[in-house]
């Protein structure tokens, strides 16, 4: 009899866990993009959010696009997902990792075709190495991307 009860409990636990897993999966699937932290430039070009909608934009800072306004903390740059681009303006301090070719996440609103950011965060990628190794990779031509920062591996774009 003891054997039977053990088996009953085992079956019950397995079925209950499968149901909990399925329910969680459905909830996460329904939430979908709502769980994502930011929108890509392509999302923003397609959806054309209004000036009242606060949102986050994520992508790579386009090479050569960073312009710093003289005598102020105003910075203009272009964020790209290699398909579409969005122009960004931001006034304030940038994180240390902010540089061209680097992934960033900016929070703000679209105003007259320009994304006016109130906060800019730097993403960093999953590559860790000493500076000498990074230099050697660049010299031998095995570097996968822009200079100064890791290349736009799929991780830097976040999808």
């Amino acid at each position, binding site marked *: 009899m003891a054997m039977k009860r*053990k088996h009953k*409990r*085992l079956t019950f*636990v397995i079925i*209950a*866990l499968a149901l*909990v*897993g399925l329910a*969680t999966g459905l909830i*996460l699937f329904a939430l979908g*993009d709502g*769980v*994502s*932290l*930011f929108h*890509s430039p392509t999302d923003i070009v397609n959806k054309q959010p209004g000036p009242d909608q606060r949102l986050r934009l*994520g992508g790579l800072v386009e090479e050569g696009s960073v312009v710093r306004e003289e005598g102020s903390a105003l910075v203009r740059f272009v964020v790209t997902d290699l398909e579409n681009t969005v122009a960004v303006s931001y006034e304030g301090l*940038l*994180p*240390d*990792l*902010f540089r061209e070719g680097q992934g960033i*996440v900016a929070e703000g609103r679209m105003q007259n075709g320009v994304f006016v950011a109130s*906060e*800019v*965060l*730097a*993403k*960093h*990628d*999953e*590559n*860790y*190495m*000493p*500076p*000498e*190794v*990074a*230099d050697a990779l660049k010299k031998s031509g095995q570097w996968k991307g822009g200079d100064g*920062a*890791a290349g736009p591996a799929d*991780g830097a*774009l*976040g*999808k």
Partner: protein
Amino acid sequence: MHRFANPTRFLRIAAAVQPWVMWITVALFGAGLYMALFTAPADYQQGESVRIMYVHVPAAWMGMFCYAAMAVASAVALIWKHPLADVAAKATAPVGAAFTFLSLATGSLWGKPMWGTWWVWDARLTSMLILLFLYVGYMALQGAFDDRARGAKASAILALVGAVNLPIIKFSVDWWNTLHQPASVIKMGGPSIHASMLWPLLLLALAYKGYYIWVLLVRMREELTANKVRILRLKQVHGG
């Protein structure tokens, strides 16, 4: 398995093994910390701040590892009613909670200089915070019943249900876009972390694991002894 499920035999083995585990842990921490702080290079992008990784990443791994151990022990306790499984699950909870808290705290300290923020509600950080709440809920639920057996059963069910959070934490950085970067060590195509940084990281991961086993043995022995004392007291009261 049944051989080791006997509490008396377990106590004998645990007492013999515990000092070895402690000294191995101390040695691993010594070697790992020395390599992490002195011989490992600075990162090409993050500079010296990358050293927070050696504390942060093993802590996050152990937060998840301890939860998995707790969930498995809870399942064994619920299904096969092994007396040691309950004790092991109960002993694991505060250790896992401490590791999870350490990973959240060091992650926050690392996020400020690198990302530019202490905290962001992305899928990885949020699911890790939920893990901490699951540990806290497990411990609270366990103590919420006058009847210890009912507390153990209720918290074991919570531990099992909460296990669905583990794959969510692991794959959060792949399923959604997040500020947190994707996996560097356990991923397809091998680690994307240089060997000079990977070795101290793995040594410290082993050191954290040794620490967990050591504390687990101490806590389980303490709990089993406390149970014995409780039974003796009850016998005294009832004159048996």
